[in-house]
């Protein structure tokens, strides 16, 4: 039965995967990818079909578990934001070497403009790096349609497939025609150690296979149902356009079709080089429109040679940073966008802030109070709501780099003699990537004070389960932190005197201390209260 549903790009991916016979999704929450897993968690089919969908501790454990499910013969999916690819990279790149058994699709959601991220890295480089097929949808409908195709492609080529999308597609809704039938697809478990044991002798053979497949994979991109060529009738044109993902939408919004401009829509990689060359032969110059880094543009430059005119991010016709939009693409096509009303003078920015009543607020108030007496103190923070402690009125943190870096940067600084070196990390971030760093600090007896600000959830992405809830004291003690220096406090204004005393004592303790301020997130608390009113 066909039906039309209003879906976010993320939800279209989730539903496409469910209909393709998914057995499990493995993911760590991260904007803009979170809603993929949440949609599957809420789907009524998940229990009936025994679909795995609980959150993983981090993207690497997610990637490995999905590979294991594929090994067992079932279709699995891994979802993450772009920077999660860095965490998963070891498993991801090597999964291209082992290859897969059941279909395995890796979804990476990039965040150009950094709406909720710390960099703009383009995941397509990972696909090329691992030498695997890659898909890039432009619309919610394609996001849905591509999942069935991606799982089949993965099983046929025995390789993982990378699906790349950006915030604008992930978080935009449109009507999607969906099939409503579910595939029942699985294979026998793998039974081929020479493929799966990456000893050098096996790995060399697998590397030769993967390298030899590249021409075939390019051929698949050339003939992909998602690769579209329009208005390229062989006549010479002044300008042709190569566009991918959301970039294609902005090209079409600017009436490329109505104006008869030849357009090559790239939706599958390795880049369909024959199609690129054919377009180049019929045009005097080519404009490359892609959200992210100049990934296609660099390859098109290499294919067309030095004398050929390529317009895009490298030529300065499109900006190198930030996401594209219809106005930016209009300008690259020589049309000045119309504007009838200017933004008035004096309109103030309204940055996000920690919620009223949030426990992180009390943690920063207490830290600021104590550290006022230690002018050399530095606070190394981490990724989460509590990164907002950087903004007024707190201005309480000195760094935020990547998941887990608070503890290890504090350790490195302390090793060099900096004191006090304080780490502030959330509960979910600690189990994602903080535990191993804490073990390093314990083994070195580094003089650091770690604050695990525990709000019992993964708050910034909307309140998902946190892997370490109820286990933090046990984890810290098991890693070797002395039990008397694992201190739990309740971050409330009325406890300020005792909290500041605890912080002071632990800063003055020579060695590793952990302070765990614990109070539930205001958002998840009010959601629970609404659900179960007393």
């Amino acid at each position: 039965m066909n039906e039309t549903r209003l879906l976010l790009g993320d939800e279209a991916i989730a539903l496409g995967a469910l209909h393709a016979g998914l057995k499990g999704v493995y993911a760590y929450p991260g904007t803009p990818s979170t809603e993929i897993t949440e949609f599957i968690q809420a789907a009524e089919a998940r229990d009936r079909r025994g679909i795995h969908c609980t959150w993983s501790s981090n993207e690497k454990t997610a990637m490995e578990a999905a590979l294991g499910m594929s090994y067992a013969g079932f279709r699995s999916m891994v979802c993450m934001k772009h920077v999660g690819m860095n965490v998963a990279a070891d498993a991801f790149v090597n999964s291209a070497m082992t290859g897969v058994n059941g279909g395995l699709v890796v979804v990476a959601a990039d965040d150009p403009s950094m709406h909720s991220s710390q960099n703009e890295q383009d995941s397509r480089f990972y696909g090329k790096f691992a030498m695997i097929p890659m898909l890039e949808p432009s619309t919610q409908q394609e996001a849905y349609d591509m999942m069935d195709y991606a799982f089949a492609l993965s099983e046929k080529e025995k390789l993982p497939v990378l699906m790349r999308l950006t915030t604008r597609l992930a978080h935009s809704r449109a009507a999607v025609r969906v099939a409503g039938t579910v595939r029942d697809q699985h294979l026998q478990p793998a039974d081929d150690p020479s493929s799966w044991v990456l000893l050098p002798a096996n790995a060399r053979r697998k590397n030769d296979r993967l390298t030899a497949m590249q021409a075939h994979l390019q051929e698949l991109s050339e003939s992909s149902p998602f690769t579209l060529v329009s208005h390229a009738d062989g006549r010479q044109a002044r300008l042709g356009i190569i566009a991918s993902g959301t970039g294609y939408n902005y090209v079409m919004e600017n009436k490329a079709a109505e104006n008869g401009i030849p357009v090559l829509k790239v939706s599958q990689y390795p880049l369909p080089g024959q199609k690129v060359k054919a377009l180049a032969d019929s045009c005097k110059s080519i404009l490359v429109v892609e959200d992210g880094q100049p990934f296609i543009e660099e390859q098109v430059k290499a294919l067309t040679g030095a004398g050929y005119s390529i317009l895009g991010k490298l030529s300065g016709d499109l900006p190198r940073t930030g996401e594209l939009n219809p106005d930016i693409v209009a300008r690259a096509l020589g049309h000045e966008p119309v504007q009838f009303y200017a933004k008035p003078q004096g309109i103030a920015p309204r940055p996000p802030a920690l919620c009223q009543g949030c426990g992180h607020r009390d943690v920063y108030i207490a830290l600021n109070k104590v550290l006022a007496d230690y002018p050399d103190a530095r606070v190394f923070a981490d990724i989460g709501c509590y990164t907002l402690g950087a903004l007024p009125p707190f201005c309480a943190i000195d760094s935020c780099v990547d998941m887990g870096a608070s503890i290890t940067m504090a350790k490195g600084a302390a090793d060099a003699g900096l004191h006090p070196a304080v780490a502030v990390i959330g509960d979910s971030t600690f189990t994602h990537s903080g535990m191993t760093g804490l073990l390093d600090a314990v083994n070195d007896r580094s003089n650091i004070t770690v604050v695990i600000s525990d709000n019992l959830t993964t708050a910034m992405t909307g309140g998902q389960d946190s892997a370490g809830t109820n286990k933090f004291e046990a984890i810290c003690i098991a890693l070797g932190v002395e039990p008397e220096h694992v201190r739990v406090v309740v971050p409330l204004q009325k406890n300020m005197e005792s909290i500041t005393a605890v912080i002071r004592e632990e800063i003055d303790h020579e060695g590793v201390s952990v302070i765990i301020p614990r109070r539930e997130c205001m958002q998840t608390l009010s959601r629970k209260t609404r659900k179960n009113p007393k």
Partner: protein
Amino acid sequence: MKYDIILSGVGGQGILSIATVIGDAAVKAGLQLKQAEVHGMSQRGGEVESGLRLSDSTIYSDLLPSGSADMILSMEPMEALRYLPFLAKDGYIVTSTAPFRNIPEYPEEAVKSAYEALPRVTGIDIERLARENSMPKSANMILLGAASGHFGILTPEQLKESIVNVFGRKGPQMVETNLRAFDIGMSCSQ
């Protein structure tokens, strides 16, 4: 025929519920639709914007081009002004008149004088109306009701049917309150 809307407000004010109702009505009416939402960090009391595009033919871009919005529909007066570059020449602004003051120096004068210079503004104190009618959570549906006469591409009746669809799972009380809120909004704009 197309109708492009910018929805704006402050995180937590309920602009996504407005988008959900319009979206449901659009799908039921067989229209094309694109609705770009804001998730993640920007929800924490920061500025929130969602572009909503309706059309009877293909819509390519999820984002609105500048100068194309037929309406800016805003839960907060200063937030509407932030998106003025997107407003079409003869576009409408339908906005709450109640400032949300969670920033150090709210620019009262700048907001006031900007509105004096704008044509086609409907300003309604939806927060007061919601309080007076004992429907504190339905200010957003009052605003939608006030705007509904302008859409053209969707009728107020179609939107009311979608209020029933969208709030149905929260119980008949919620449906009834939100329908009443919508009607209060409609009567304000007449």
